């Protein structure tokens, strides 16, 4: 990192900063250091670009500047009974709109209706040439032009500096409650998760949490208050074992802490891995092989993603993990990790490098944001 971060106050100022930089990465709330720091890269602090610019509850759309804290957006939506269905992470920690989109990571609630990619309607960003580019439209349906909003999801600040985002929002379920089955074996828990998931009961969240006494299966159901008890009973019948029910504050705080990674030690590196119920076994094997079966982890959103808390004292083993994941065809993002923890923001198996290389060439010909497509780059390096 060189010098103090610059803190532009407008899209035009961001564009100017990008044009004047050699290697630069944007930072929103700063909750994901491994994603905004790279050797030799300046940091562009976009937190001054803050505020909700348009919220139209009747359109199911909200637009905010990229540095706006997600907590602010969520509070505003909640007042109208709406929410961000992709269930953003690290909200209390200070995560911002742009940082969330660029990281491309979703919370357990993404299970119900989809992730960021499904709820991002429009973006404005500054590309690597310092041009202000808009993509998408501020309406819930649109098929005109290339889908640049989706391209920016998970772009890790390497394709452009986001300055404004428009999301689709949905009405929040009237009430929610959670069923918990403690202490299962991993296979048993995955099987039970599949059984409930395949049934008629519509589920908001379904997580498997690793603990000392095995895996806890947690299933959140939401909807009209009037029907909730009957639906909980139905799901419990499908589980066919003893369950505890959490409702009200207990339910709400469970899921709030989950997405803040309250279950992980604060100095651990939290990795996100895309998964399916069929590949969870491969991840378990990778961890066992590295003598890491004890590390904290959650199989989240119906076992569609894992969050793994890699302990600080085993940072030296991250390259070995990188290799093992590659062999197992698994990919990980160093989501909440110290700047120097991860050898590079993406570990393990990669696809699409050639297409990404061409896109980078188009949007950032000079490589001002580094090159994510370069597979061997220890850190985003200059081309």
């Amino acid at each position, binding site marked *: 990192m060189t010098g103090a971060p610059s803190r532009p106050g407008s899209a035009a100022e961001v564009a100017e900063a990008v044009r004047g930089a050699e290697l630069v990465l944007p930072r929103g709330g700063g909750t994901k250091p491994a994603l905004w720091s790279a050797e030799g890269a300046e940091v562009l602090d976009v937190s001054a670009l803050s505020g909700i610019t348009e919220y139209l509850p*009747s*359109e199911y759309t909200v637009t905010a500047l990229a540095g706006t804290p997600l907590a602010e957006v969520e509070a505003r939506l909640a007042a109208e*009974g709406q929410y961000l269905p992709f269930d953003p992470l690290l909200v209390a920690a200070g995560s911002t709109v742009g940082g969330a989109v660029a990281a*491309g990571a979703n919370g357990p609630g993404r299970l119900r*209706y*989809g992730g960021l*990619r*499904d709820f991002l309607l429009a973006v404005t960003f500054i*590309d690597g040439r310092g*041009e*202000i*580019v*808009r*993509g998408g*439209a*501020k*309406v*819930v*349906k*649109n*098929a*005109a*032009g*290339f*889908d*640049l*909003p*989706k*391209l*920016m999801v*998970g*772009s*890790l600040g390497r394709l452009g500096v986001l300055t404004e985002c428009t999301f689709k929002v949905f009405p*929040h379920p*009237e009430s929610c409650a959670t069923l918990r089955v403690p202490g299962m074996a991993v296979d048993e828990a995955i099987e039970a998760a599949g059984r409930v998931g395949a*049934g*008629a009961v519509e589920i908001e969240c379904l997580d498997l949490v690793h603990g000392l006494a095995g895996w806890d299966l947690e299933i959140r159901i939401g*909807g*009209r208050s*009037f*029907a909730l008890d009957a639906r909980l009973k*139905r799901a419990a019948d499908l589980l066919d074992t003893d369950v505890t029910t959490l409702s009200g504050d207990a339910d709400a705080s469970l899921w709030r802490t989950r997405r803040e990674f309250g279950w992980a030690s604060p100095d651990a590196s939290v990795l996100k*891995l*895309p998964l*399916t*119920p*069929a590949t969870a076994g491969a991840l378990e094997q990778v961890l066992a092989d590295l003598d890491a079966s004890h590390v904290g982890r959650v199989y989240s*959103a119906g076992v*569609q993603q894992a969050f793994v808390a890699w302990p600080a004292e085993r940072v030296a083993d991250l390259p070995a993990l990188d290799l093992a994941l590659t062999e197992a065809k698994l*990919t990980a*993002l160093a989501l909440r990790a110290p700047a120097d923890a991860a050898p590079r923001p*993406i570990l393990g198996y990669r*696809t*699409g490098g*050639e297409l*990404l290389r*061409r896109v980078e060439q*188009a*949007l950032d010909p000079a490589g001002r944001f580094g090159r*994510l497509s370069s597979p061997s780059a220890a850190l985003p390096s200059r081309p």
Partner: protein
Amino acid sequence: MATADAADFLDALTRCLGVDRVLTGAAPMAAYESDALTAFRARPRAVVLVDSAEEVVDVVRLCAAADVPFLARGSGTSLSGGSLPVHDGVVIAMNRLNRILEVDPVRRTAVVEPGVVNLAVSDAAVPYGLYYSPDPSSQSVCTIGGNLAFNSGGAHCLKYGMTSNHVLGLEVVLPDGEVIEIGGDSLEGVGPDLVGLFVGSEGLFGIATKITLRLLPKPETYFTLLAAYDSLAAAGEAVAAVVASGLLPGAMEIMDNLAIEAAEAAVGAGYPLDAEGLLIVELEGEKQQVAAESELLLDVVRKSNPYLEHIASDPDDRMRIWKGRKSAFSAVGRLSPDYIVQDGVVPRSRLGEALTKIQDLGEEHGIRVANVFHAGDGNLHPLILFDGRVEGELERAEELAGEILRLCIDLGGSITGEHGVGMEKRQYLGEMFGEADLDAMRRIRLAIDPGELANRGKMFPDAEAPALLSHAPHPLEAAGVISRE
């Protein structure tokens, strides 16, 4: 290309596929000269019928080496000229690549070849209680490859999204013949969402040869409500009230009087003929939940003062209601020798304003416009009726279509919700986006396909257009197999 080179190129194609699968000459290629936007026609150099992904790669590499433009063609039902051949290029017909490679009930995914017909995916998923959600009205004929090129939608996209929201992974042949894999079989990914970028790229980034789709559990039950109003505006207000109530229906559709009359005459759906606006709202999902929601829905809709309401009494009754809705456009189309369908989007709260203006514009031009639309997501489908044999009517209809697109842009919406830009709306893309936005898109296109070989001439405003012929129903539509929505 010199004649000798051209002959060599055809020879190479023939060596690769055999003489039976390389069509040349006017008669064999006639069916491929246009798509469902029959106003445009262009003659390709050859049509090739591929049987495997490897053959797609071979053909694309031959095209790249000889600098010949090409495009993939599914069923040719594009309404925007997306599958119109590139003049003197190669049409790669994908229909024979139509195997469903795998349906996995645990992952809830299907892996399919691009020529698979949309409805076939749901059919294959039935034994597992699953289905493929996006439901364009052309779903009995259109292909998954075409759907993903256009990010196609349907009546049931409000809750679970369009094609893009259901594609997880792709195998793609880039325009220079390089084969890549993007995405995977998880709902989650890491790194820029390249699958998201590819879906909706209208064939400009190459050809998808293998597609991993997400399947959803089939809704346990439906609650379908029909409400008739004495004005279109009142129907629109009812939609706003449903949205404000916090309900999230699976579908919310509105038809105007002309559409109601035509649909009624065509299929006898039992619609009230005197309604000025007819609203169809459908809740879907778990029994107890739908039961609880339906009470609220009825309450909300009754407060909007429909003069008549009807609840689907059983699955047959529900099908009848939907049949009327889905046939409405072809039914209206029969009232007129020719018609154009637009599919612009406006913010939901401005639907009333948009509809009034469309009626006014129609009157100004002396042209009848019928309206059937996805009210839940503000996606209009104005049907512009004209007679191409009457001097100047086509031009007036085109002009009106353009004014409607501009209206959508002015109201803060989009020129297309699901039919794509294709050939038809190219000149309006530059009105919706600024120069820098278009330039970024163009740069991406050129970085991926420097020779602009893949579907050359589509989407971007500056590309050259072939001659305008006339508007007529798609052959399948005329035969009553599919209907426009």
